[in-house]
């Protein structure tokens, strides 16, 4: 035996095996590594046998999780050994230790090529396998034609050709631009006539890769796939070796049906009939048998057939058979089948008309939500989430709430997020929604993110008839003995704003409300205290007639916190105390918070974002795509005042502002700005609802409602960067996010604004692509690099980037490739020359295709005026002489900007610096 001679290796492995603990193992391995290293270093002319032995030891050590940072060269050099055993070790170990970018691989290219085009079949196989596993760009460039030739060669034996097929698949997937597959449709069709099932299995994988990219080119393969499937399903001419427990290669059957799922429809009536006959046979003829392996294999085929039928979504009769089967599966005891039943039922939700039938199984699915197996519970949760609509939301959400108390910790966060989203999307009435969220906070407070309680505050604020209800409800919760801090936050906010609406009810006098709240203060952290202080100030204001005792109590609290070490608490305490002395003025300043503008629920955004990484089309994403506007209903009506208009059934809606796009633009500047000027200490710019947090916790902006403040700041910025028109005038920049079914992640305008102030960052992102930008500026020249990153395991095709430069900019974008390979990043340099100052903004018209989605976005590029500015330092005493020596416009311009929110000088200076404007300190301005 090959390893018989390698006694050293066997001894080493036995030693490792006998190690009592990790420490012993480490010592033994360190010793061995030292030994191998020495051998490689000192003894020139190791025999191939010795090399082989040491290289195996290295692989062994590497497998155990220890770093092996030497000896790679020796492994690679074995590839060129003349004898099979050494060569084989070289190839196998190299493909385990190295990756496609490793420099040493380059050294082996020639040997590998010689092995591939050589006459020795076994060498060919070894070489093809290694290239198929780790072959990179250079391999593709030098080997692709040879591999293609081998695959089609009639003189080549199947054992080589099957490897050539998968080798080609790798080269093509990694470098679709290098491997030319034009005209391959016919060759693929020809390959599918192959009798050898090994070659057929690999060719089918290759076909899946090709078809998934461009199904139209491969129509001619469709009937061949059906024929292959028929041959397998009828067990015609299948060698015994390829039959697994009586089933003709279940893997090839599955693969073939997978390939068929990449064709949208089947038009040819004969092919169609044949396929449906085969599918019918699989659906009806798969029985449960005793032998586990046989049962699994036949059900593997059955589940793939179900997927194919769902994909074709053609025969009503067959569809109902599928639903019936799935209904049976989700009720069986066998856990694997039940898991797959639930998983496939979730996929079934996409199919038209299936929802109603699936709903009949609700009770059964809920049982699986309580299964001891977390894999099954997750599937059940996903399915329940996907099948929820207005008719069953109440039941499903109640179930989720009930389950929450006993759910394991790993699932609670997901569970509560899903319950919150469903409650928001499908609430039959708003009071129910409030009930659900409060229950969520009560039962799983630790898992309730801030977004969830922010959202309930938004709804309560915007719906007057909800306010007394919510206030009464939170008061009930507060009276419970143990209350989660999040509950204290939401209660403090709501009671501060609306508890006066309850004043006539027993136990709800300002004093009593204050008492209930204040009881919680010793138990909460510093982030909650500011909210409590605001609530006290508001309660005090609403106390009519004034209550001297309450007043002195609250003043005492403000007094106490005036010296608090936490700046936010201290500031509030000082300001509220000062305000309270002013008597009537307090009324205006502490007036009720204004209505919130409509926004897309940050919860739903978050759910979408967290899905972005998964390859699978999960239920969340599907629903989001099917019903893009469910989360918010855009109406032009102001919110219902009082109880005059009935609360709409269905998706909830917040108060309205005229246009979605402008709203997003306005609110979005807020976080970017506050990050810049830092005046809102609490704002976390990464947080999806940072702006909301600012609204809630920012009573400092007391000049007017939050919207107005934001507006004025926004103007200040936009004027500098290119006039309000550049943003508001949708004539220049039609941001077409609405039309695309693919929603961007994050706010495009916000990203643009951020990039106006810095030179690198993300310009655009959606579930498929991320566009980053990096810029350097020198005088009137700019050099930008666009980083186009494909986030998926499938390529992005039809990629197009078109520059729409304004008249004053000369722009040259280097060639953008038509296809971005999976998980690859493409860099596209862009040269900009500014010919004259202007506030117009350049636009990048970017589009790509992913699957059936055509995505097109128009993105403003941050090549804005201020980027080309060059600050000149001027000493204070020279400033006025220089200023006076300038003659007038356009050399000299003077503008007074009003309505800017006050900010500390250093922050103002920072902001201006990031606009590349020089600050000249120490001057007394003669202008104002």
């Amino acid at each position: 035996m090959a390893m018989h001679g390698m006694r050293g290796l066997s001894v080493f492995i036995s030693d490792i095996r006998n190690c009592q603990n990790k420490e012993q193992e480490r010592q033994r391995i360190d010793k061995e590594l030292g030994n191998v290293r020495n051998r490689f270093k000192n003894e020139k002319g190791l025999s191939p046998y010795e090399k082989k032995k040491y290289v195996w030891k290295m692989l062994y050590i590497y497998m155990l999780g220890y770093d092996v940072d030497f000896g790679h060269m020796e492994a690679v050099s074995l590839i060129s050994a003349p004898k099979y055993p050494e060569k084989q070790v070289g190839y196998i170990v190299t493909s385990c230790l190295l990756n496609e970018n490793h420099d040493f691989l380059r050294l082996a290219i020639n040997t590998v090529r010689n092995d591939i085009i050589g006459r020795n079949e076994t060498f060919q196989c070894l070489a093809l396998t290694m290239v198929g596993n780790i072959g990179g760009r250079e391999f593709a460039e030098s080997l692709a034609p040879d591999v293609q030739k081998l695959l089609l060669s009639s003189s080549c034996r199947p054992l080589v050709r099957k490897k050539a097929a998968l080798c080609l698949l790798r080269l093509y997937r990694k470098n679709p631009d290098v491997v030319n597959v034009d005209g391959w449709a016919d060759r693929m069709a020809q390959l599918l006539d192959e009798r050898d099932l090994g070659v057929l299995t690999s060719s089918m994988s290759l076909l899946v890769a090709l078809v998934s990219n461009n199904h139209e080119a491969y129509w001619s393969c469709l009937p061949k796939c059906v024929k292959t499937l028929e041959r397998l399903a009828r067990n015609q001419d299948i060698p015994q070796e390829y039959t697994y427990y009586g089933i003709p290669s279940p893997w090839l059957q599955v693969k073939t049906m997978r390939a068929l799922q990449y064709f949208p429809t089947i038009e040819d009536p004969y092919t169609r009939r044949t396929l449906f006959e085969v599918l019918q046979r699989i659906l009806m003829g798969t029985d449960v048998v005793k032998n586990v392996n046989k049962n699994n294999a036949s059900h593997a085929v059955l589940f793939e057939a179900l997927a194919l039928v769902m994909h074709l979504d053609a025969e009503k009769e067959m569809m109902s058979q599928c639903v019936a089967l799935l209904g049976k599966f989700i009720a069986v005891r066998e856990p694997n089948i039940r898991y797959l039943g639930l998983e496939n039922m979730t996929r079934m939700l996409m199919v038209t008309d299936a929802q109603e039938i699936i709903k009949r199984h609700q009770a059964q699915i809920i049982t699986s939500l309580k299964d001891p197996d977390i894999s099954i519970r997750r599937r059940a949760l996903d399915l329940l989430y996907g099948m929820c609509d207005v008719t069953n939301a109440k039941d499903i959400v109640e179930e989720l709430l009930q389950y929450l108390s006993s759910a394991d910790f790993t699932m609670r966060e997901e569970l509560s997020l899903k319950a919150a989203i469903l409650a928001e999307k499908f609430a039959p009435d708003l009071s129910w929604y409030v009930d659900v969220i409060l229950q969520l906070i009560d039962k799983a407070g630790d898992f309730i993110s801030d977004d969830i309680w922010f959202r309930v505050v938004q709804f309560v604020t915007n719906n007057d008839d909800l306010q007394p209800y919510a206030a009464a409800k939170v008061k009930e919760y507060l009276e419970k003995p143990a209350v989660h801090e999040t509950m204290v936050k939401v209660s403090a906010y709501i009671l501060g704003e609306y508890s006066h609406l309850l004043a006539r009810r027993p136990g709800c006098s300002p004093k009593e409300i204050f008492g209930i709240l204040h009881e919680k203060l010793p138990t909460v952290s510093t982030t909650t205290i500011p909210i409590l202080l605001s609530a006290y100030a508001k309660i005090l204001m609403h106390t009519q007639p004034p209550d001297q005792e309450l007043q002195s109590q609250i003043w005492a609290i403000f007094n106490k916190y005036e010296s608090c070490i936490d700046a936010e608490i201290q500031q509030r305490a000082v300001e509220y105390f000062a305000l309270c002395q002013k008597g009537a003025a307090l009324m205006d300043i502490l007036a009720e918070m204004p209505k919130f503008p409509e926004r897309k629920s940050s919860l739903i955004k978050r759910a979408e974002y967290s899905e972005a990484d998964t390859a699978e089309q999960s239920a969340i994403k599907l629903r989001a795509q099917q019903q893009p506007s469910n989360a918010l209903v855009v109406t032009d009506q102001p919110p219902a005042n009082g109880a005059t208009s009935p609360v709409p059934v269905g998706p909830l809606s917040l108060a309205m502002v005229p246009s979605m796009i402008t709203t997003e633009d306005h609110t979005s500047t807020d976080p970017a700005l506050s990050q810049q000027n830092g005046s809102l200490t609490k704002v976390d710019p990464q947080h999806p609802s940072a702006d909301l947090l600012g609204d809630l916790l920012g009573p400092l902006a007391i000049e007017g409602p939050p919207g107005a403040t934001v507006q004025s700041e926004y103007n200040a910025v936009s004027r500098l960067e290119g006039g309000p028109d550049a943003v508001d005038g949708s004539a220049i920049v039609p941001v077409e996010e609405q039309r695309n079914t693919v929603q961007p992640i994050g706010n495009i305008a916000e990203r643009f604004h951020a990039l106006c102030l810095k030179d690198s960052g993300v310009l655009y992102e959606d579930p498929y692509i991320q566009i980053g930008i990096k810029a350097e500026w020198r005088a009137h020249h700019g050099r930008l690099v666009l980083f186009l990153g494909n986030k998926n395991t499938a390529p992005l095709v039809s990629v197009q980037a078109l520059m729409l430069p304004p008249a004053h900019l000369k722009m040259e974008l280097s060639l953008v490739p038509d296809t971005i390979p999976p998980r690859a990043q493409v860099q596209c340099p862009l040269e900009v020359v500014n010919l004259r100052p202007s506030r117009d903004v350049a636009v990048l018209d970017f589009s790509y295709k992913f699957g059936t989605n055509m995505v097109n976005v128009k993105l403003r590029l941050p090549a804005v005026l201020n980027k080309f500015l060059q600050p000149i330092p001027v000493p204070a005493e020279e400033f006025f002489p220089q200023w006076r020596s300038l003659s007038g416009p356009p050399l000299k311009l003077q503008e007074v900007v009003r309505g800017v929110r006050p900010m500390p000088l250093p922050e103002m200076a920072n902001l201006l610096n990031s606009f590349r404007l020089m600050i000249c300190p120490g001057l007394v301005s003669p202008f104002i």
Partner: protein
Amino acid sequence: MGIRFILMVNKQGQTRLAQYYEWLTLEERRALEGEIVRKCLARNEQQCSFVEHRNYKIVYRRYASLFFLVGVDNDENELAILEFIHLLVETMDRHFGNVCELDIMLHLEKAHFMLEEMVMNGCIVETSKANILTPVQLLEKT
């Protein structure tokens, strides 16, 4: 779609064979093996053979003291992979005669070689035991 990695782990959680079809750094491998081994070994016989981990799935099967764990994309056919594991075990059985942990440890090169004959670049290449074992037997003769 495809297989991301194949692991063989004993019930103490020690890796006996690891083959990855996407490049991971050593740290990533260590972390991944630690996490999934912990997750899968804690499960009992009554639970299903699929575990969701990050954005992919583990399909696993236990044979006496040895666990076979296969990481696959989310849309892979789980039962087909489950039976593919069994095919691998049967192939090893045919070669070693009732394969055990020690066989795999002491004949790591053969185990790797069989796997190479069965899976390439995350796709199944061959499912005939005779065809899989031919090159392995060739190795013994030389």
